[in-house]
């Protein structure tokens, strides 16, 4: 048991050292990179390792007779969570969200230290000791707190009041409400009833079940279904249109939306708002095909104000593509991400 716990504790200490090293730039911050796609699991397992490490440390300290006061365990763990969220997660979490996590973890820590009467006593004993100041040490400690607390709080409020030149936060609606209909190249499309003319089966009839069987498979890589290669010479109908849509995508759209449709194209780094990531389940997978048609045809400039039409560099594609080309690109985007367009029912 002890051997196991020492190993676990060692891992915890190493992890902590690494985290601190990365924060202060002693260790390159990309030593263990968070990789998109693995990130949630990476974060969870890292946190699990840390918690195990702390448990190990606490066990070791206990068995060596230098028990760490419950009070400081709670405080330090809460500080650790905050540090981890601030410095490890990328892209950075806004302060407001961190504050929410902070509250939740505070409540969790509080519940942990007050799980039963004995624990709670253990937790608050150090506080009472300092308040009462019965020993010389505690007296010194109390004096220190009495001086430090006003200074810290005063200093903190000074820092927050000092005029800052941080980026102002502006919240944008990513999927604003669409209009009822849209006019493209002289033809009016009612969003509720329009259909992608290329989502057809071999008989040429609109058939979403047919196309759903031919899209790429979900899971890592999102590879094409076996025997559904759009580049096959014999590919016809839906798959042929997918290829044509892909050709248009890779001559027009990938500059921003990227080779893997994840919004990491060649020019994407320069733009804000960042290009949409179609592989994210929150974008095209949530939307009807006609919504996409409207967004593609009218572009950033055609957005309502909550979508920040002034900042979006999304072209109004009716200026560059024909209606058919737009429908084919949409067909390709669903094929390549392996998502089904949402339907009205």
């Amino acid at each position, binding site marked *: 048991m002890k051997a196991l716990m020492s190993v676990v504790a060692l891992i915890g200490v190493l992890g902590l050292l690494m985290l601190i090293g990365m924060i202060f730039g002693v260790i390159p911050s990309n030593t263990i990179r968070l990789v998109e796609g693995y990130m949630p699991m990476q974060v969870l397992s890292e946190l699990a390792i840390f918690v195990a490490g702390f448990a190990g440390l606490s066990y070791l300290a206990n068995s060596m007779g230098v028990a760490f006061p419950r009070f400081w365990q709670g405080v330090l763990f809460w500080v650790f969570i905050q540090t981890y969220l601030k410095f490890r997660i990328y892209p950075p979490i806004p302060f407001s969200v961190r504050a929410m996590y902070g509250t939740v973890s505070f409540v969790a820590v509080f519940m942990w230290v007050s799980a039963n009467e004995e624990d709670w006593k253990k937790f608050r004993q150090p506080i009472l000791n300092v*308040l009462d100041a019965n020993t010389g040490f505690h007296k010194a400690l109390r004096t220190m707190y009495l001086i430090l*607390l006003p200074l810290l709080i*005063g200093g903190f409020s000074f820092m927050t009041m000092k005029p800052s030149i941080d*980026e*102002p936060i502006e919240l944008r609606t990513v999927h604003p409400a669409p209009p009822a209909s849209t006019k493209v190249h002289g033809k009016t499309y009612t969003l509720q009833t329009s259909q992608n003319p290329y989502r057809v089966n071999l008989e040429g009839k609109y058939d979403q079940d047919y196309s759903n069987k031919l899209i790429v498979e979900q899971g890592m890589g999102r590879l094409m279904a076996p025997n559904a290669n759009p580049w096959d010479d014999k590919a016809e109908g839906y798959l042929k249109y997918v290829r044509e849509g892909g050709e248009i995508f890779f001559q027009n759209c990938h500059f921003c939306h990227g080779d*893997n449709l994840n919004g990491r194209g060649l020019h994407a*780094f*320069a733009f804000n708002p960042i290009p949409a990531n179609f592989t994210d389940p929150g974008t095209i997978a949530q939307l009807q095909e006609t919504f996409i048609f409207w967004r593609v045809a009218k572009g950033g400039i055609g957005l309502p104000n909550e979508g920040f039409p002034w900042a979006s560099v999304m072209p109004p594609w009716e200026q560059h593509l024909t209606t058919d080309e737009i429908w084919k690109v949409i067909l390709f985007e669903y094929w390549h991400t392996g998502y089904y367009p949402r339907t009205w029912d």
Partner: protein
Amino acid sequence: MGLILNLTNNLGEQVVRLTMSKLRMNVKAAPIIGAALGALLISACVVGVGQAEDLPEGFAKGDLSPAPPAEMIEAGKRVYFTKCVWCHGVDGAGDGPGADRLWPRPRNFNQGTFKIRHTASGELPLFNYNEKNPDSGKNDLLDTVTHGLPGSAMPPWEGILTEEQRIQVLSFVTTQLVKDRKFTDKESESQTILQLGTIKPVEATEESIKKGAQLIVDKKCIECHGVEGRGDGNAFNLKDDWGFSIQPADWHKCWNFRGSRQDPYNVRNIFRTFSTGVNGTPMPSFADSTSVEDRWSIANFVNSLCERDAEGKPLSIDPLTDKPKINFVVPSAPVEGEISNDPENEMWKKQGRRYVAMGGQITHKPRNFVNRIDDIWVRSLYNDKDVVYLIQWDDRTKSVAEGKLPWAPTQVNVENFGVKEQAPKTGEEGSIAAAQNNYAVYNDGIAFQFPIKWQEIPAPFKPRYLFGDVKFNADILKWESDGSLRSFRGTGWDQDFEERDDFEEKVKLLKAEWKNGQWTVMISRPLKGDKDDYDEYTRFDIGKYIPMVFFAWDGHNGDAGRKMAVSAFYYTILQPPIPQEVYIYPAVIAVGVVLLEGWMLTRRANKKKGKVL
């Protein structure tokens, strides 16, 4: 001598390498001893060391990797036709649908020419389907697919394809699409591998960097890469193996190095590229002519040129884009009196510069697919009258249009004058491939816009990033390399500018200089117009966020009108002096805390005494 003999008796390659390096140094010092030693070594080789005497320093012979199994190749085909075919083409000739509008172009696999390798110049890269870990130094192609090729459209595939899938697709590419060479052919192929893992780097001391600075002159690096390494040397005569023009790397943007492996400030990447060369391009391997130590010095020097922050630390790189992290605020600091027009002046050096990312304008025709200006550096100062912007950016060529431009300076729609986006296919006239380094030369330029009446526009509303709109007009200042600095009002992306003559006397061009591949332009404008009325010009109020957009044109890229580079919305802010309340309130709060402490202690003391309050 005894030592060397002893060592050569031991036939391990590692040791022979060691001897070789010693030997080379001796050859430099004293040719006669060198010749003697060489003879000795050759005689040792006869005993069975192989071709060690041909190896450049730091390299060792390696074996060809085994051919991947058929099912791996088949699985790779599925990956290839889902992900890669769109740019690299059905036959891997780098001619997929995406290729026509890409620069640099997608790789043509057929010849087996790969840029980033650990192998000697001209050799095939390392690829071993058994080596599943990236960054092992044993699998160049896996590293390329994993980390992508920054500065090109090749993205990092880590997190998208599993390692297995990446190996599979490489098995397909190396066996089916590389057609002129064979990775397993012992007759024609060899692998001479740079031992990057075991070579000890030379520390980047001042001395080493200084030596590197001299070496890049001696080795003629500057002929292509330019005196300051901004890639401005021989930028217009370089072609790759397929006849497409290419440009030398800009050493100041290490995050765009193809071989940077998402670790741009790592000097090892530079050492590797310098040692092995870049196949298919005019960049040779310098391994034969340069000692390992000198190579490190050069790599250290090149690395030292990459842009850094004010403290000399590497810029933090955004892992989502592999470019420097962006701060969208361009602060302007107050100064007393005149603002210096010398960027080296203390007041400018003190003011931090901001990295402003630039993308191609690809919203409206003519779109700029091949964007040559991907960032600019901006600093700003203000005094009681003016605000001054110092903008610096790398541009390999100083471009000034010959004669008068056929369009008026206010004209935005210049498509009728030959400024077109490239539609034709590669090979046809007017394609990107044909036009590269071959455009009619227009003026280089820089411009920025502010909303005219931002005070009346509730945040976050803004005039559109592209020259404003009808409702909210934009105040645009544009400098061109013919020396002109003009003030415009913009009313929409397709609306010609309105010129404002009276303002032009008040805006000043403090500096415009092109030197060694870099433009330095300093523009001063009044904080407000004559009257307090701001219908015409943006009025700058202290401490307020004022939206700002930047535009840049590279005349040798055929940039004019809307064919240009453009930034996202940034904010400029005139930093205010700190107001008094900031000092008063925290003090009051601190006193409040002291009172609270007193109350708590009294309460506790009373409670212990049994008093109830």
